[in-house]
């Protein structure tokens, strides 16, 4: 096994539990569906889950077939993950700041 295969095996191995955990998150959000809040949670978990699942599949393709195109797609998935997580984290921070300022603004 050369370093390339070793790198992809490690990447695949550590991505799988995250995919499973986010998949469970989507499933639990669907089961306990209550309203708009759950829709946001489903969109959040669903988006991350889809990106990481595609990343995991592309890594498998790259490892088994030595496919450079799959590796390129995997790097695209990495950047989509960062963009998605970044935007979502920013929204969470804005919501938290808004929630803290809200009582002061109301009084």
């Amino acid at each position, binding site marked *: 096994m050369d*370093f390339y295969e070793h790198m992809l095996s490690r990447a695949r191995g*550590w991505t799988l539990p995250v995919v499973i*955990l986010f998949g469970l998150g989507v499933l639990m959000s669907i089961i306990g569906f209550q309203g708009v809040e759950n829709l946001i949670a489903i969109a959040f978990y669903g988006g991350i889950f889809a990106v990481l699942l595609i990343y995991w599949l592309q890594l498998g393709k790259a490892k088994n077939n030595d496919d*450079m195109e799959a590796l*390129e797609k995997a790097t*695209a998935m990495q*950047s989509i993950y*960062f*963009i998605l997580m970044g935007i979502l*984290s920013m929204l969470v921070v804005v919501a938290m700041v808004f929630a803290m300022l809200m009582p002061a603004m109301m009084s």
Partner: protein
Amino acid sequence: MSSIYESPQASGNTRRQRDDTLVTEKMIRNIGRGRFWARFLSVLSYIFVAFMVIAFIAILFFLFAVSSEEFAKQVGGPLTDLSSSVITIGAIAYLVFLVVFGYISFLNAKAYGRYARYSAELSASQDQEDVVECFNAFTALMKYITITIIISIAAGVLIAIATPFFINSGSF
């Protein structure tokens, strides 16, 4: 071996050859796209860790500087021996949680930063080593996210189990 008189054929094969480099133009572009957000997430994670350090110091202050009587005044009632020890155990458990969670979050922030740094170096050098480092940073990130989620679930289950015990002990 093919004949030298044979016409050259274009290959649609995208398979990596053993001596091929891992770097392609598209890969560099793709990795570069996530750089800003990786840096942003790194800074955000460091801020999160700073808040955890503040919470840690506050809990330590509560444990050592605030006496049981003062706390009883805050809660609004006399503290029994049992309830004060339950609160102390709860605070120590929270401290342990903060240390573990804070450390993992710190490693997480470092992995985000590492990805951003090697992504910037890749744009300049176009070196295969930087692609490998970006992949390793992303893998490390996946590892810490898995650990973070598992710790969060374990903490949630522990809190769910401990809450009735806290309420029954008359602490709150």
